[in-house]
């Protein structure tokens, strides 16, 4: 499926390509495949994928933007989805024990349901990885169940532990590093979402999916140990 794209010069050495302003699986897949083609251009320095846009940064100042933009248009017109990179569904263990899920009770009260209901809903669906931003290794995920939408906390916490799983508005995600944060924390994953020791520090990529799998405290600590020893293998299956 081809979309109507707009091309804007962004600064003197980058072009911003925009898709229709909606969050959709078709759009992100189209962006991912366009990005793969664009990266082959020798003068491209880096690209940034987001929900409905692709920023293409060039090594040098853009001399003639008409030339650059028509080159991009030709690549888009010629690109096909047939040469897709393998995409995976990753199983992410999460412990929803109240010692980690510090906001579970509050959300359950707000939603007039049990904490178990929240865990069930959160682990039920697959979440699409749209892109990675905010912090190294932070996955922008789509697919949070409507009944789990909760506004961000009015007072952000000074410190949220790395691995904490949160809900902020209509989004859910995992904090890859210790940081301050305003999301409602419902659990913690023992995995490392930005592992400098691994050849690929960030296992998931745009277009992959993840699934949260509830684990108990005992399993959490066991996996945490294996992760620390670089022994844990995240379960994945081809999409």
């Amino acid at each position, binding site marked *: 499926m081809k979309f109507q794209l707009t091309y804007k010069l962004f600064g003197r050495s980058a072009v911003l390509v925009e898709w229709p302003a909606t969050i959709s699986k078709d759009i992100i897949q189209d962006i991912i495949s366009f990005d793969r083609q664009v990266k082959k251009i020798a003068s491209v320095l880096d690209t940034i994928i987001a929900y409905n846009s692709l920023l293409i940064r060039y090594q040098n100042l853009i001399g003639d933007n008409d030339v650059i933009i028509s080159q991009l248009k030709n690549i888009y017109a010629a690109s096909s989805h047939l040469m897709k990179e393998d995409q995976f569904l990753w199983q992410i263990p999460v412990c929803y024990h109240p010692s980690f899920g510090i906001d579970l009770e509050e959300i359950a009260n707000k939603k007039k349901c049990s904490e178990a209901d929240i865990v069930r809903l959160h682990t039920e669906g697959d979440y699409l990885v749209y892109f990675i931003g*905010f912090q190294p290794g932070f996955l922008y995920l789509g697919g949070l169940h409507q009944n789990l939408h909760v506004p961000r906390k009015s007072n952000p916490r000074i410190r949220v532990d790395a691995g904490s799983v949160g809900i902020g508005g209509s989004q859910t995600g995992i904090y890859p590093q210790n940081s301050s944060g305003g999301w409602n924390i419902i659990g913690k994953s023992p995995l490392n979402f930005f592992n400098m020791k691994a050849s690929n520090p960030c296992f998931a990529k745009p277009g992959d999916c993840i699934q949260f799998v509830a684990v108990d405290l005992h399993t959490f600590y066991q996996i945490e140990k294996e992760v620390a020893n670089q022994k844990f293998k995240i379960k994945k299956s081809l999409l």
Partner: protein
Amino acid sequence: MIEVLHPGIYCSIQDHGRFGYAKMGIPQAGYMDTYAAKMANALLKNHERAALIEITFGQGKFKFISDTYICITGGDFSPKINEKLIKMQSVYPIKKDSVLSFGKRVYGARVYLSVYGGIRTESVYGSKSYFKGITQQTLVKGDMLPILPIQENTENSFSRVRVSEKHFRTMYLPCIKGPEFSKLNKEQQLRLFAPFTVSDHNNRVGYRLKECLENNLPSILTSAVMPGTVQLTPSGKCIILLQDCQVTGGYSRILQLSETAIARISQKISGDKIQFRLEENL
């Protein structure tokens, strides 16, 4: 080696930055004042991307454990070798055990210390630039920074250049329209090109400006940003994103600073006035 005797408030190793890793959410980082950093490397005949030390507000003290050549550029904070004032933008031979310190501020905010051959710390994802989570965040007391030994035949011209005064004094920041600029109304556009004041919230991630712009723009779907992007927040504050900024953001991107403008703003301090100036769009 260079020993960090005093790490100041924010000293870090920086080169031209980290590219190709935005897909993992890794920011660009790199030296803030490209003009000063490249000049320091050029005077020492280093590669323009050689790593150097970025010293915020001239606060820091360094001891040279081996002979080398140095050059100081950027903000002038009265640099001294063994308590004796040295000149900015000049190459100096340095004897082992010499100590570099700073004094009174003359102008600017960020000082660059370049050494012969560049600082030889570890490269992570194609860059030596410090960024929290990728490398250490700042220099700490006792850090030993590897440098190249000088060879018998190391020649240096002891060249010196005059720095462009305009770089440090001017309030004008050349920029072009950002992706959401056209959503601003006439009044907002008019205000945008009047002077602003740099607030107390300024660092390597970005500079917040004091004055507000009336903001009725709808928020955008999170999209790419880069150093030099001027964001308009829902409260009407403008934020100029700089080298350590995130790779994506959800605020309207109203302007994009030129490389020259980024270098200029990085030498500004709280209370300084700035004014955006639109370069003709291509």
